[in-house]
């Protein structure tokens, strides 16, 4: 298991290549990458705040739970904070398992929990001003399926 919380950009492709390399036990590797979306075309950037003392521990707890529930071969979580431009990678999860159903389920579980249980807060900065992204009821509801 690898968990990284960082301000620096990361290389999605390089991370996937490294994560999948040399696995003979895991036939299935799933990744999710979250990018800064600009729906309206006027996003200047995203500011992501986090809780340094808690973030890594919280994510490690979530990832350990995923590994336990789905007998994963491995899991990777990378999450950035700070200032992010439109289109930039925000975060990435990767899961490896012998079979695809486990790799998919674990990746979705990780994403649902990272959304609502890892201490990050997003602020959108546009030409019109700044606004904190509000948590969606559907993201909280998504936890109920696990």
């Amino acid at each position, binding site marked *: 298991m690898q968990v990284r919380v960082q301000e620096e950009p990361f290389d999605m492709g390089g991370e996937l290549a490294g994560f999948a390399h040399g696995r003979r036990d895991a036939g299935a590797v799933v990744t999710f990458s*979250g990018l800064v979306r600009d729906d309206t075309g006027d996003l200047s950037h995203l500011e992501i*705040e986090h*809780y340094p*003392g*808690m973030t890594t*521990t*919280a994510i490690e707890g979530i990832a350990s739970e995923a590994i336990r529930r789905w007998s994963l071969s491995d899991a990777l979580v990378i*999450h950035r904070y700070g200032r992010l431009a439109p289109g930039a990678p*925000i*975060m990435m999860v990767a899961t490896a398992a012998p079979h695809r159903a486990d790799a998919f389920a674990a990746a979705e579980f990780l*994403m649902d929990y*990272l*959304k*609502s*249980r*890892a*201490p*990050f*807060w*997003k*602020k959108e900065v546009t030409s019109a001003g700044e606004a*904190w*992204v*509000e*948590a969606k009821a559907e993201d*909280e509801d998504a936890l109920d399926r696990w």
Partner: protein
Amino acid sequence: MSVDVLYFAWVRERIGLPRERVETQAETVADLVAELTAREARYEAAFADPTALRVAVDQQLTDFDAPLAGAREVAFFPPMTGG
């Protein structure tokens, strides 16, 4: 006892600082919120709607009924928006 109180996102912005050391006799998180709210309008503004807030004691998510005995760090913030 004294405890480090941390604020994040718009809670931090409303209160105007990211952390402070607080002397308190509060037995629970809710007691601490009541003490802070009584202090100044900016705390009242931040804590006006407790359902819009989340709390962590010593970096573990918990709820407003949680006891503070032995706690070193209490953090208040809005629902998280990671991922």
